[in-house]
């Protein structure tokens, strides 16, 4: 678990259910009080996430340029781990800041993106509320 996890979801789990609920409540409340602070998650960056985020004035995770293949070579397992950790830190930071999370969901029946899967796992672990966003 990386340091961001320790600071956020990890902290919530150490607090126990009551503490976790209080922590989540504060975060959710912060999100509701500042509706401009929102992000969009899901699968499909160009055709789904970006249009969805722009339609509601939300932010989205900006993929790291180091994730882009050079000479046609995809990320190694180690590089993927680093990239996922970066995504995780970003996502936990948004949760800690009380961002409202809009979820446009997977493209189809199965999640194939490791980055979206990571975000869904964090939501599952923390119980942080999300709002399904239809139309994308």
């Amino acid at each position, binding site marked *: 678990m990386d340091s961001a996890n320790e600071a956020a979801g990890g902290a919530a789990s150490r607090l126990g259910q009551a503490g976790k609920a209080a922590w989540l409540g504060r975060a959710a409340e912060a999100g509701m009080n500042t509706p401009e602070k929102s992000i969009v998650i899901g699968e499909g*960056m*160009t055709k789904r996430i970006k249009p969805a985020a722009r339609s509601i004035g939300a932010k989205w995770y900006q993929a790291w340029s180091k994730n882009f293949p050079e000479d*046609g070579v995809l990320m190694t397992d180690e590089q993927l781990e680093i990239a996922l950790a970066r995504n995780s830190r970003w996502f936990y930071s948004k949760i800690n800041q009380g961002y409202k999370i809009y979820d446009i*969901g997977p*493209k189809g029946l199965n999640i194939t993106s*490791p980055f979206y899967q990571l975000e869904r796992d964090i939501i599952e672990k923390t119980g942080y509320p999300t709002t399904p966003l239809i139309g994308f």
Partner: protein
Amino acid sequence: MKNTENIDILKKYFNFLITNLNFKIKEVRSLNYALYAKFISNNVGIYFSYEFRDFIPHIQITKIDTEDLKERPGLYTIKELYKDNNFKLQSFYLDEILSFQAQNEYKSYFQNIKTIEDAIKISSELLETYAIDYLKGNDFNFTELDKWFKEEIRMH
């Protein structure tokens, strides 16, 4: 690697669509982080979408009446659309076709890939092996897949 090289790779492995099944390439967009392409026949459209950081290409196969091929909306939106009993989905991803046929999970085929070419090659082989009836626009196959898909959504 120049972006045009990825287009060449795509054309190489998906050439069977053009030579065997009368598809034509309608659009190709190659970026440093992704490769997108549309193939169109007289009744089927294929939307190829590969965002490299996700490792696995998405291949959407759609029964079409015109050449206006759009990306299918996501699962949450389809759930809403299915609330209309008359709604019939005519667009499916290759991984859903594999699931319908009880094949191995789509992403399991990509576990050992190292390059963009590896991924494109595997996706084209799976498309040709398991989706040929859909590529030909067989109505029965699309109808059966729609029934299965609707049931899958109801169960989940």
